[in-house]
């Protein structure tokens, strides 16, 4: 068993860190946070400098962690223009891949994923957006809530209901995924402002009013949308674990620095604070190992949803724990430096792409079903 990254990944990690340290300056991070502004220039720079590498998921994961370690809001912003791309990669027709996916990968376009609705996010199958077939198009009515890139993306991979479930107890049947363009008639969006954190990311509400979507924009088979989205979450949750570990590691870096300086200046540090530091560090390591395990299953085409949910759930709780504990350790310094931004950013990790409670539902259900985790 080997717990070390190979040379290629080590070099890549260093390259991403150097990029983030150069580009994510405190000034840039603070301005985008205060003004709630998406850093489009960073998206393009990251792409042009080869920081985003879609062909290697290990690199994507490690890149996300390294960028969030320097600044979560900017790190997520640089990597989120492709959010939902895996659904197109795995199930999109040639037409969809050429017309949408390829343009996102080249940086020409930005995309998003529309699953959550005002009435619910955890209960994916409870969605209310309806797509009715009319000739060779669908007429879509409904809305989506909290959609990342909501007012800036060119198109969204969107989950809708295309037929009533054949059994009321099986609501996940009859759902489909389609590509919805901002340019379609009947599409509108509103920016959501006043978020606690990740304020450099763009979040919006999407409204569909008799929006016509060509049939060719259907992704994969009609009625299989729920499975495609669950499959996607099993991939994306590993990347949320990476965001979380990046945040927790960033917090650990800053807290360590703070205590070292305090000690060097002859101020009192105390064992209590050192123990708290040790606890953060231990949880960061444990989360990372869990993420690597989940990633190694997934990237070797043997996805294991239990381990993935454990990785996402534990890493996201670690991010909150680390940030909250760091605020306790650093006191006044913490609330007046970038640590407070890390603290605000950390909390979203336990909410998006499956709340902590949802992850526990998945884990317990799978364990009780007798799923193996080795």
């Amino acid at each position, binding site marked *: 068993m080997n717990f070390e990254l190979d040379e290629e990944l080590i070099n890549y990690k260093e390259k991403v860190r150097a990029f983030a340290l150069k580009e994510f300056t405190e000034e840039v991070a603070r301005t985008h946070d205060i003004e709630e502004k998406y850093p489009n220039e960073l998206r393009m720079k990251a792409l042009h400098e080869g920081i985003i590498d879609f062909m290697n998921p290990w690199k994507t994961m490690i890149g996300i962690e390294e960028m969030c370690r320097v600044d979560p809001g900017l790190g997520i912003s640089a990597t989120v223009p492709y959010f939902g791309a895996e659904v197109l990669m795995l199930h999109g027709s040639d037409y969809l891949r050429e017309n949408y996916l390829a343009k996102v990968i080249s940086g020409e376009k930005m995309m998003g994923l529309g699953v959550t609705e005002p009435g*619910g996010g955890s209960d994916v199958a409870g969605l209310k957006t309806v797509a009715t077939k009319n000739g060779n198009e669908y007429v879509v009515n409904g809305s989506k809530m909290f959609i990342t890139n909501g007012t800036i993306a060119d198109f969204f991979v969107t989950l809708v209901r295309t037929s009533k479930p054949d059994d009321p107890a099986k609501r996940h049947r009859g759902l489909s995924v389609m590509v919805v363009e901002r340019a379609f008639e009947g599409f509108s969006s509103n920016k*959501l402002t006043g978020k*606690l954190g990740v304020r450099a990311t763009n979040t919006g509400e999407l409204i569909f009013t008799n929006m016509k979507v060509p049939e060719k924009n259907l992704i994969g088979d009609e009625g299989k949308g729920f499975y495609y989205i669950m499959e996607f979450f099993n991939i994306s949750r590993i990347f949320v674990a990476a965001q979380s570990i990046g945040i927790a590691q960033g917090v650990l870096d800053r807290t360590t620095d703070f205590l070292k300086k*305090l000690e060097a200046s002859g101020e009192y540090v105390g064992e209590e604070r050192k123990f708290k530091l040790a606890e953060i560090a231990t949880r960061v390591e444990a989360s990372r190992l869990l993420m690597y395990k989940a990633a190694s299953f997934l990237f070797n085409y043997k996805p294991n949803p239990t381990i993935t949910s454990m990785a996402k759930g534990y890493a996201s709780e670690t991010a909150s724990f680390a940030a909250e504990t760091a605020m306790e350790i650093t006191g*006044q310094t913490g*609330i*007046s430096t970038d640590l407070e931004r890390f603290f605000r950013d950390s909390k979203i990790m336990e909410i998006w792409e499956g709340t902590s409670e949802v992850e526990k539902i998945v884990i317990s259900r799978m364990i009780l079903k007798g799923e193996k985790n080795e």
Partner: protein
Amino acid sequence: MNEQAALMRDSVKEFAKQYLVDKATTIEREGIGKDTLAAILNQGFIGSNLPESKGGAGLDKLSHSVLIFELARVSPSVAMHVLLQNDLVLPLLESKPELIKGILSGEFPGVYINPMMDGFIKPENDHLLKGVIGSSSKYAIAIHSDGKVYLDYGKSEIDNDSKPLGMRGLGTCNFNVEKSEVLGEKDLADHLLLVSSLDIASIFLGISQGALDLAMEYTKVRKTFEHPLKDYEPVSFRLSELMSELEIMKSALFSDSIEEIMMLMLKNQAASFSRKVTRYALQFHGGYGYLEDFGVEKFYRDSVALNAMIYRPTVDKRFLATKLYSDKSGFL
């Protein structure tokens, strides 16, 4: 709870309902405006715990902590303003009756720096105080680099470049010191924070109550998987546990006689409890909890920020350990 405290609770609740509830979000975004400062003053909240001979209302300790608790439940920033004025600023200005008069008449709002920490920060420069809590005043109270408590005279500039983590309603400013006068040794601030333990516990518990109020309401109406959230054990059991802990602490907080050491114990418990409660309250709001408009994220921010602002875990825990062991403890 005695009669005076019960009366106080009812009247602050009424004030919160009639006035503060609708304003709480605006206060977060734009600061405690002149109208709110005037309303607080009109209600007699500022200086309420000062003896009548000094222009106050002579409120007992319990009634004052009820006041802080009920205000924090709706707007922690407003509660913090009252707490800072009543427990720190006015007592520190004991030798300055003209300034006390100015604060009580509303001539100027009090201004204060965060001087009360575990020795984390000392001002880099005694002539420019950065990150002073409060928006504008001719006066600031600060611990200078020599560790003593000073009254500073000068000019404040509102700090528009930063958005504080918590207690946003108070605002922050940078203060250019023109003249300074010693108010007391550093021990004075430590002492005041210690005797304010009950009010500090009140603000933490008021924050906890405010967050729990919102979480209980939300989980009654929000449905997932065709059930209200309250039907799920992880939601309702957790909220019930938190409510139980809170009620137990409130029964100590609002008892007619509470020993000094219990006040400190309560403050320690309330400080970490409020972080836990507010985190869960936000979590149970899902995505909506992450938005300012829903009013729950502010409790989480305020709880964490307050811990850094006026809570000194090392000093307090040493004091507690030493009391409990009846011997100097927590010192190597």
